[in-house]
Structures are given as C-alpha cells and as structure tokens.
C-alpha cells in the first residue's frame, strides 16, 4: 500500500522542489534545504525522500543535463505533479483551518511567529 500522507520533512522538500523548478535535483535540494533552514542534511536523506515522494506520486523525475563539475554525469531532475500540488494545497488549508480555530492566534495569521 502506498502511503499518501505528507510528513513534515517531506512537505518541506516538496516545497523546495517547487521553488527550484528546473534545477531540482538531490544535491541542489539538499543545499537549498540547508540554506533555508540552517539545518544540515545528507544528500542521501534528501534523495531517499525524493524517491519516496516519487513513489507516492507527488513527484516525477527525468534525467537532465550533464555538467563539468559533476564529472560529466547527468542529474535527475524532479518536478511536482498536479497531485503533489493538490496535496500541498490541502496541507496548507488544513493548517490554516487549525490556526483559525486556535483562539490565542485567531486573526493573527500574518504574524511571522508567536514570539514576534
């Protein structure tokens, strides 16, 4: 059975793939993740997640161009599928609906964080 729910890390990775667009391959995704979150991550972990997201149908992939700094090897470029986009939207809507039900923060959704 294919798991279709989206984990926290998976959601972030999926979003980063969306942000990077045509440049979304394991190494770049890992770099982007590190620079956005300042958390370190191994390429293997990112690759494994990308692979899982692909199995779940949120991503598709194809082999892309080769470049010199990778020894002339091609990279695998990941693209979000329509299904993936829908899941991301559903996830955002679900959280917004939770936030709106939370009395302490109702109406303050545009605030960047609780301590701001």
């Amino acid at each position, binding site marked *: 059975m294919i798991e279709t729910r989206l984990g926290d890390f998976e959601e972030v990775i999926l979003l980063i793939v969306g942000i990077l667009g045509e440049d979304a391959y394991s190494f770049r995704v890992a770099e982007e993740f590190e620079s956005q979150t300042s958390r370190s991550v191994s390429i293997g972990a990112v690759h494994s997640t990308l*692979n899982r997201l692909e199995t779940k149908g949120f991503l598709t992939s194809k082999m892309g161009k080769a470049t010199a700094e990778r020894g002339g090897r091609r990279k695998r470029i990941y693209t979000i599928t329509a299904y993936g986009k829908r899941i991301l939207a559903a996830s955002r809507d679900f959280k917004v609906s939770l936030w709106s039900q939370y009395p302490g923060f109702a109406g303050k959704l545009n605030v960047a964080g609780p301590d701001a």
Partner: protein
Amino acid sequence: MSNAKDTKPPALPQRILLRFLRDDLAEEVSGDLEEKFYSTLKEKSLFQARLNYWYQVIHYLRPFAIRNAWSSNKNSFSMYRSYFKTAYRNMVKNKLHSFINITGLSVGMAVAITIGLWIWDELSYNKDHEHYERIAQVIQNVTNNGEVQTWRSIPYPLAEELRKNYGSDFREVALSTQLFDRLFDAGEKKVNRPGLFAEPSLAQLLSLTMVKGTRDALKDPSSILISFATAKASFGDADPLNQTIKLDDEIALQVGGVYEDIPENSTFAGTAFIAPWQALLNNTDWIRNMHDPWRPNAFVLFVQLADHASFTTASEKIKYAKLNKVNTELAKKKPELFLDPMNRWHLYSEFKDGKNAGGRIRYVWLFGVIGGFVLLMACINFMNLSTARSEKRAKEVGIRRAIGSLRTQLIAQFFSESILMALLALVCSLLLVQLVLPAFNAVADKQMSLLWTSPVFWLLCLGFSLFTGLIAGSYPALYLSSVGSGSALKGVVKAGGAAVIPRKVLVVVQFTVSVVLIIGTSVVFRQVQFAKNRPLGYESSGLLAVPVSYVPEIHKHFDVVKAELEKNEAIVAMAEASAPTTGTWSSSSGFDWEGKDPNLSVDFPVFSISHDYGSTIGWEIAKGRDFSREFLSDSSAVILNEAAVNFMGLQEPVGEILRWNGQAMTIIGVASDMITTSPYDPVKPAVYFLSNGPDNYAILKINPRTSAAVAIARIEETFKKFSGDQPFEYQFIDDSYAKKFGNEERIGTLSTYFAVLAIFISCLGIFGLASFVAEQRTKEIGVRKVLGASIFDLWKMLSGDFVLLVVFSCTIAVPIAYYLLNEWLEGYQYRTGIPLWICVAASLGTLAITLTTVSFHTIQAARMNPVKSLRTE
C-alpha cells in the same frame, strides 16, 4: 586547488558506494556527491571535503538505494539443483576419494561428538540438585607431622555446633552417615541396600522430588524415605506408605515417603533409602556412649548457604569451629574446617597439602584436547583432499566461465559441494555415534545418549559442519573461480608453494598428534602394569572376604564352620578380620612408645584380626612371630608392619612396648608391608591386634583343588546353616584389588581407541594425498621410466617426501609426549618411567604404517606402463 590530482574525490568511498548502490542510481548519485565535494572544497579544507564525502557515502546506506542481491536471480532453485547434481556426479566419479573424505570427516566428528557428550555429562554432574550452586560439604585440613591432609569426614557434634553458633550463614545444615550397604528387610527377603542415616534437612538440601509422602517425614525418628526403585523392588505395586522396614536387623521404621531415584550423575546416586539420624543415634550404643564425641571423624556434613553468605566468607568463619572444641591431643593436628562447594565435588575432588589439586577435571581437559585434535585432523584431511582434488577441476571451471558463469555462481557451486560433503559426514557420524555409544558407555562407566532433542546440540553439529564445509571449499571457491577462463581451460592452474606448504604443515600436525597419543597410551598401560606387578605382600588368589558383621552366629560357631568347610575341601584356611585386605577401615591416633617425639602426631590404620589370619592370607613375618593360641598373653600383643617400624624408628622392635590409649601392648612380630589402599601410594604404618569379639569379615582361602564356583556353593550352604535367612555375599580379594586400577585402565582403553582413530584418520589423509601426488606426477613418472628409472627408485622418490614429514613429526612429538606424561606420572607416588624405547618404537611404528599406506599408491604409480602414462591428458 594547486594539484588537480589531489582535489579529486577520494577513490575508496567511491568504490564502496558503487559496491552497494543500485546500478540505476550510480550515475546521478556519484554526480551529486562529486558536485557536493567541489562545492565543499570551495569553502573548506580538502580534508573536510573528503570527510564530508565519506559522510555522504555512509548516508546512502538506505534501503531504497542498496542493491538487492537476491531479487536478481529468480531461477535460483534449478541453479541449486544443478549444483547438487554436479556435486553428486563428482562424488560418484571419484568414489575412492569421496569415500576417504567422508569417512575421515565422519570418524573425526563421531569422536568429537562422543567426547563432547562425555564432557557434557561430566560437567553436568550434580546439577540436577536444585540448590546446586549453594550446597557445600564441610571438610577439614588436618596437619599430621607437618603434612597437611584433607579429610572429608567430621565428628558428629559439629552439626549442632554449626547450627547453634554459625547458623546465620547457613539455610540448612545436614549431618549424614556415608553411603553404606545396610541390611534392608522389607518383610520378605533381606538384602543389602546402600543408604544414609541423615538429619531431616538433607531431604530439603538435596531437593528430593517426592512421589509419595513428604520430605518432612524424616523429622519423625520412626519413619524412613525410600527411593522409587527400592519401593518397586520391595513392595511391587502395593502402596509402600506406612510399610515397615527393618534396617540392620534392629531399627524398625515406617515408610514415610518415596522419592524419585536420584539421577546417575549425582554424588548421591544409588541412595536406596534415607533414614533419620535420630533413629541411628537411638539404636547405636557406641555413638551415644562415646567417651569424646569430637574424636572420631566418622560422619559427613552438608550445608546449604543462606542467601547473603558466600563460600569463602562462611569458610573463613567456621575455620576453627572444630579446633575450639577438641581436646589438646587432637588440637595438635590443627583441624581447619572449610567448605567444599558441590560444583567442585566431582571434578576437583583431590587435595594436596590442604589445597585443591584438581581431580577428574584433568581428564576432562585431556579428552577435550584429544577430541579437539582428532576433529582438527579430520578437518585438515578434508580440506587437504578437497583442495588437492579441486586443482583437477580447473578445466571444468574454464568451461563454465567460457559459457558465461558468473564468479559468484562458481563460488556458490564449490561451497555447496563441500557443504554437502560435510553434511553427509555429519549424518554418518551421528549414525556411528549411535552405534558405538553403548560400547563407549560400558568402557567409560556412563549412561549417555545422543541429545536428539537439544537445540544447542543440533546448532553445534550443523554449525560445525557448515563451518568445515566453508573452510574446505574456500580454496577452490575463491581461488579457482578467480583464475581467467583461458588459463583455466589450458589446465595450467597449479597452486604454487603457497598452497603446498600449509598442506605439509597440516600433515606434520596430524602425525605429531598421532605419535603423542601412541606414546601416551603405551605409558598409561605401562604405569598400570607397573603398579600391578608391585608385590602385594600377601597371597590374593583364591582369597574370599565374606561380610559377617550381622551374623554373630558365624562367630559363635566359628570352629564348627571352619572344620566343616575344611572337611568338604572347600577351603584350606579361615580367619576373621575387621576389614578385607584391600581396605583400611579404621585408624587410631592414640599410640605412644618409648622415644616418641612428643610433637609427632600419629595416625596408624589398625586391623583387628583373629588367629590364623596371617596364615590365611599368607603374609610374611619378617621378624618375631605370628599370633599364636599357645600364648595367652597375645591378647595384649600387636604385630606391626615394616612401615610402622621404620616410622617409629625402632631398631629392635620385637619385645618393645607400644601403648595404645594407655594400655601396654607387646610387639611380638613384624609383618612385611602389604598394599591395603591405593597401589600407587606407599604402604602406611599399620597395627594388627587380636580381636576379642566378632569381626566384620570372614576371610577364607579357597582350596586350590576345588573350583571357585563349587567352593562358594559349599561355603554358602554351610554359612546358611547358621546365619538363617541373612543374605550371603562375598568378594574375591583379587577382584576388588583389580578394581583399584579401574580408573587408569579406563583411561588407557579410551586413549587406545582415540590413538587408533587418530592414526586411522592421519593415514586416510596421507593415503589420499599420496594418490593425488601420484596422479599429478604421472607424466614425470613416465618420462623417468623411459629414461631408465627402476620401480624402486620411483618408489623412493615418491615416498621420500612423506617419510620426511613423518620423521619431522616424530621429532616434535617425542618431547611433547615426554613433557606431558612426566606431568601425569608426577601424580603417582609409585610410578614407572618413560623409557626411550617406547618413543622410538612409536615413531618407527608410525613410519612403518605411513610407508605401507603411501606405498600402495606409489608402487602402483611406479609400475604403470610409461606409454600409457605419457599419453594421458
């Protein structure tokens, strides 16, 4: 960035990565990692970049990325079937070779399994008792003239003393008699059965499993616990509870419980009954009326530790518990008590100078090592032959490679072949063990069986077979499969020196072990023979000892019995004695004589005997005279043995006065030394005196003109006239003396078997190797023959290598055997030496056997028609 070579990603992690990574991911992943490497390099040092590369590689060890080794070959079943088929065909093709291989290995395994079972049995001794880890016997070290002796028996008030003043360390304290045969009368027939008189706590301590009744029944001094076997024998199917049993014709007890038979491998095995100590005390005058109950060490004491106590601390506490109570004369011996834990009773039973000196554990080690070596030898052969043989299969490997066999498949094929052989050998060895186990049990005096139901046993057996198979198959599997198909097809695969030298080492190891075993066996038998040839000091043939302590009627009618037996020619002489000549049953310390060093503490075995004792057993009087009816004063006379005279330092012993507990006794004669205890120990000083009442044994000398069977029938008939329904039992003195050699003879017999098997296995190995060498050098032999070599020359050439190896083994084996056996012989006071000729004979014998074995092949090879041998290939 200065050097382009330096800044490449490290090669090793890259190789590792490609090793485990799925092939379809290889390109993208290595690309990503290389990009990562260069991007790290821009910011950090080369070292850090490399370190990071390692980190990334290790983080690719994820299920999704790892190649799946098993899913690629969907057709593995028919593959394995093909492996087994090839293995089977190969075995059938080389029948002799397979036979040698499997026989050798299965004999080796059978030996190892048998020895393993034996060791397991030895180690599990006494373990059936629930409190095994907490039980100990209280024993003592006493000092006799500077020599520390360890006695397992103690005086009986010690039990009460420990309970009262040291009770906090012990959960149970149980006094008991030693296991003795007692006259057991269950209503119908009187028989002798071994049993104990013990305090009630013994039943708890031994955790007896009750079939009927309770352990507490022992608290009632008028009841008795009997074993299940005894209950069956005495009462059949009837309910044994509350039946009456009479012990020693005087103590009547009711059966209060039936316990399950105590297992064979327990110190208490064979205990037919346990009667209350109180009953013995109530019925035995000499115990109750003892002048000083702390004096005779006639009983044994067992304890179970309290939960907080340990053997060492409790030993330390009770150390002087006896010394504080005994009189000044006995205090000279400085008795020191200590605990001997149950887990050491069986294997560490010997004490020397107050310290534990091992015991049977020696034999556990000895046989363990022998078993290990025999198994090792069998494995060596197996590997040797498999390796040697596999070189012949280079062509097969070549063809397989040429038509597309993968290396892993070749490896799997060779491994499955050798494992198959090893498993076959295991099956054979189990059958073999099953067959020989009854015989082995008889020799080793055991009741062992294969542990069919024990998972550990199976795990060990299978694990070992797999291991041997893997090791034996590793050379062909790993080496041959790596050779290129071209050279393999040409058949030029030759293991170089690297493969020949280990093979030679293995042969040397084998023969060294065999020669050591042969020498060892010969020396063990020599030692037994040496002790057997030791002069006994009396005439043991035709001597019969009949216990008569329960039949005072025999003593009362002694002269009548004797006259009747002499008249019908059953016997030629008859006397009474306190013990058969093969044992000392009592000893005394209360001796004093003129010129005795006041610090000297003595402990002489004493024998009470009747008139004619000397002439019945045929002892020699070295000085003075034997007891005689003509001298009424002989009732206060003693005869010493020569050891006693030497010990006392008497120049003219005859006529001297020996005071025994204050009473003056005249020494009237000196008898030559007689071996009454171990034939390996020096004779102890002994004192013989005339008894004035009935004694324990009647000693009879059978008339040499009458056959033993007839004589015994007549003796029984005559005895029964007076003794009524008392059981008639007897022992031949020479039989019971021969039993003293049982242990050594058993070891001799067992090591003979092992030595024979070791030689057999070694020969199988060398036989196989010789056949292999002869085959390999077929062409060379052909050429040599054409050039004029004689059969003898060729034989010499082919056998020479092996002879050299065996000679080399012998030179290693002789010093090892000498060292080990010297160590073993040290344990005996009276011992033989290790003459050189045994070593020489063993070496020559081995050499002869080797030559015969090897010649079988070498002569055959040498006689071959050169035309034929040159044409081979």
